[in-house]
């Protein structure tokens, strides 16, 4: 199953914790900063919703990239 298919399935199953992981993985698979930021924002948003253990890490990462307060 491709990463894209895994993401779609996790959305379908409302597996938000898994989405946090998968969107971070997606961020690693792209080269442009804008694309990375997009996927990290996706991961961060679901991390906020489920109070994921990665939430602070993701927030710090986005702040350091200048895309989050």
């Amino acid at each position, binding site marked *: 199953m491709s990463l894209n298919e895994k993401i779609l399935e996790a959305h379908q199953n409302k597996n938000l914790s898994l989405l946090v992981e998968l969107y971070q993985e997606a961020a690693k698979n792209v080269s442009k900063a*804008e*694309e*990375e*930021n*997009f996927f*990290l*924002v*996706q991961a*961060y*948003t*679901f*991390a*906020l*919703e*489920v*109070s*994921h253990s990665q*939430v602070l890490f993701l927030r710090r990462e*986005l702040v350091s990239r200048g*895309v*989050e*307060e």
Partner: protein
Amino acid sequence: MDNLELVRQHVSKANGLPNEHYITQSMFDEEKNSIIFNQWAGLDVCSEIPKIGDAKPLNFMGLPLFIIRDTQNAVRVYQNTCRHRGMILVDKPKKIQGAIRCPYHSWCYSTEGQLVSTPHIGGPGQNTDKNIDRSKLSLIEIRSHIWRDVIWVNINNNARPFDEVMASTIERWKELDQNLYHGGEDGKFSLSVKGNWKLAVENYCESYHLPWVHPGLNSYSRLEDHYHITEYGSHSGQGSLVYKQLSDNKGQKFPDFENLSEKWATGAEYIALYPNVLLGVHRDHAYAIILLPVSFSETIENVHIYYSKPDVSPSLKKKNKDQWKEVFEEDIFVVEGMQAGRLGVKFDGGRFSPQMDEPTHCFHDWVAKEVSRFRKQNLT
């Protein structure tokens, strides 16, 4: 003299509220604004959201709200509307684990109401925009107060402080102000009534109907064992001098609240706290009924029963619930019958028994006073 002035005369001379207060959308809307949203009204009970993160949406007379227990264990009430595109945020009872995420564009709010993230607001991968000040886009919190587990709300944020408005009842029941333990699934039920919400209040206030509508109750709690509780401008109800504790086949009873005075050995009191909360207290249990007006001719009655200890006998608890349900169901035909009767175009609001109907007149007087005040304010 206009119709509302007729209502505000002495009980011996007054007429009741005119028909239009029961059968028209315009009066339903006016009362919503003048006497529900301007006062401290009952919304729900804290026991419905017992754990941190529990959230529940509610429609309160057309206003979308949700209640939530925040990370500090405080119960809060918010308008259930995202500050972005107005989307409903909480569509069913759920556990909020972290942030409240809008399902539309994923704006995220803390359980304390702050807007904590605005994904992609500045374009893909950019969560900020210089024109968007998150601190000014918190959830809209509704002024609320907790007393006897009831979540009271003052939607228009203009009432005097709750403790001030309800001071006399708080003082009256001071010794009963103890921990209340909700009876759980066997401590609650709902009734749907095809009647205006005020008719449920009126019927609750008075004991006049007991021998006719509740003959079973009247067999031990006779009409002459009751007294009126009437405070014009505030609340009304009735008290009983012969409360009899429920017991099971082993003679087991509910444990009492602690250190009560002799009055409560056989005493019970039932007060309507205007506009829409009906409370009952006894030595060993209490209840709260929250009336949710659905339309001018439909009301939901949510009943919650409480005990002095968390682990009371399940069978006795069920027996108590069934007993109260039977009593409240006996009242339904009265409320629905009065609603139907209000379609009689020549009905003049009715006359009161000066001896028996003072608690009901007290409520009508309050409604008339508040509606008149609202009209005068809107004219100026």
